[in-house]
């Protein structure tokens, strides 16, 4: 964590106060992201933050970087265009679970598959926050939502597993109750040359929390603590003790050729053979 850290210099202070409810996890993720940017001393003018639509996606409006607030589900498609046009830019997508895996699910798959050098931070509050608490593909089976008043019948998606099998080269799952490790994961993701997913388990006390009787934000953070296990700890635990626990940490990190570089290679080959 940076020692002295002036968060205001990265924010559009004229856009404050933000819209988030008290206790919402979105601000915690935003601040972890800013600490990561500060640690890496990234030039804000070379960073592009793209977001979709949702409470979480409002982050782009508050950051004093190059930002693009797009349409619901499409930030990765916009980001792919930006990255291909100017591969030297640091392109980051910050969005919600619904945006990334429901309406925008196909872009997620193809971004992983291409291993394009974009960092995707998904704030998973297990719900569509902005539209009032409908279940998302990441809502756990049996959980309550305004569209599942008697419990969700659909099984949840493990987006980290999907990312890994689709070809993402850095996949991590963090939790808002561990801000330092969250920041560390975002640093590694930004450093990774390829597609990185950081899924952050976050809290929406207003919709998900209330409907699932999870208590206030503090209770929800406690829930995270009691129900998540790091990869490292899990390795030492018996399978029975892991039942119902969510694994956090760096779930996968490997090398695969990166998309914009591969693209550049093809361009060069084509130009050479044309000469």
């Amino acid at each position, binding site marked *: 964590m940076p020692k002295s850290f002036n968060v205001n210099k990265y924010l559009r202070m004229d856009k404050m106060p933000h819209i988030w409810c008290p206790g919402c996890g979105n601000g915690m993720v935003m601040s972890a992201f800013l600490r990561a940017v500060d640690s890496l001393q990234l030039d804000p003018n070379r960073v592009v933050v793209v977001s979709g*639509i949702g409470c979480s996606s409002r982050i782009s409006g508050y950051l004093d970087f190059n930002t693009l*607030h797009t*349409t*619901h*589900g499409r930030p990765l498609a916009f980001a792919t265009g930006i990255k291909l046009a100017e591969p030297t830019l640091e392109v980051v997508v910050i969005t919600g679970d619904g945006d990334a895996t*429901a*309406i925008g*699910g196909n872009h997620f798959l193809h971004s992983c598959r291409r291993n394009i050098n974009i960092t995707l931070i998904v704030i998973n509050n297990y719900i*569509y926050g*902005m*539209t*009032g608490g*409908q*279940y998302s*593909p990441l809502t756990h089976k049996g959980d309550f939502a*305004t*569209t599942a*008043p*008697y419990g969700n019948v*659909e099984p949840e998606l493990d987006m980290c597993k999907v990312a890994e099998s689709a070809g993402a080269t850095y996949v991590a799952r963090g939790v808002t109750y561990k801000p330092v490790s969250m920041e560390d994961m975002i640093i590694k993701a930004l450093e990774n040359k390829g597609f990185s997913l950081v899924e952050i388990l976050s809290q929406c006390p207003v919709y998900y929390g209330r409907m699932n009787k999870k208590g206030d934000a503090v209770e929800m953070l406690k829930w995270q603590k009691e129900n998540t296990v790091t990869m490292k700890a899990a390795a030492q635990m018996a399978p029975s003790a892991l039942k119902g626990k969510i694994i956090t940490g760096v779930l996968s990190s490997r090398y695969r050729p990166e998309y914009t570089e591969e693209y550049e290679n093809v361009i060069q080959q084509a130009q050479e053979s044309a000469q």
Partner: protein
Amino acid sequence: MVIAKSNTLALQGTEAVALAMKQINPDMVAAYPITPQTEIVQGFSQFVADGEVDTHLVNVESEHSAMSACIGGASAGGRVMTATSSQGLALMWELLYIASGLRLPMVMPNVNRTLSAPINIHCDHSDSMGARDAGWIHLFSENAQEAYDNTLQAVRISEHPQVRLPVMVLLDGFIISHSLDRMESLEDSTVKEFVDVFKPEFSLLDAKTPTCIGAFDGLYGYFFEFKRQQEEAMRNAFQVVKDVGKEYGELTGRPYGVFEAFGLEDAEFAIIVLGSAAGTVRHEVECMRSRGIPIGMIKLRLFRPFPANELIEAVSHLKAVAVFDRSDTFAGGMGGPVFTDLRSALYESEKKPLMVNYIYGLGGRDLPVELINKAATELEQVAQSGQVKEKINYLGLKE
């Protein structure tokens, strides 16, 4: 005439539509949230969860899927519905043409909200106007009552054998969708009888008559003829909309036509408007008339098909008409969609009024009485002077 029993309720526009959907009890509803529509499908999903309807509710992952599911359901012979708004309608665009091209009856309430960019979630008619040429019937509502009434009538219009086209029921975002309104609802049994049972022409589930729906028709096929028939169905819709509106009037005491005229007989000039703004316009027109000013108004209900003949008949005696449009065509000075349509309709008319266009309320900008008065006063000058100073006006722009 025996008016059916009704109940007086205080409901928001979204609740009124959800109630209509509950009483229609469709076979399938596809649900996906978007502000300010969300409470329609959410309210309806509660009815499903509580076992108050027999509907299969499909919670999809986008509006593209919602309309696709509806097309599937209607092809299988079901009575299907969904509801949307703004970006959601825009995302359905591809499928809107499939639904109308396949001549699949269905009803979709669309809560009018503008389209991005810049991001704005408030009311204007850009979303449904963007789908103007998609082959759907468009019915506009002034308040929760009309949104409810239109939703019920839309089922009959859509499924009429001479029509068989999808219908959009339009209600203004927030102004209607989120305002509490006094309204009359019908008894469930009355609605059940009124909407009757859907009798599909074809059904994928009819194993005795295998059907092929939507196949590739090639360069030498009948695509052009299909499209001509689609246009014919739109022409048939005029009469059907009127017949259903009359029958509904006999049932409820609230008859509906293709538009509602007010004070036109003795008016010299008039305002034409769609949706919730009609209430405010009517108020100002009443005030001006009480001061002896010869102004009238038309609240357009049916926008697609466009009731050109009736409108010509209604306005040709006027000296001047102001069309209020809550969206723009961005055609470089041609004005809003209702203005361009009406102007085009009047081309052959021997007697025609001078026409001015007022584009108002984009992105939820308010339309207070003062602005209507400003436009009406300018319109009066046009009528008196016989001259149009500014054809296309933007009402309520920040200076």
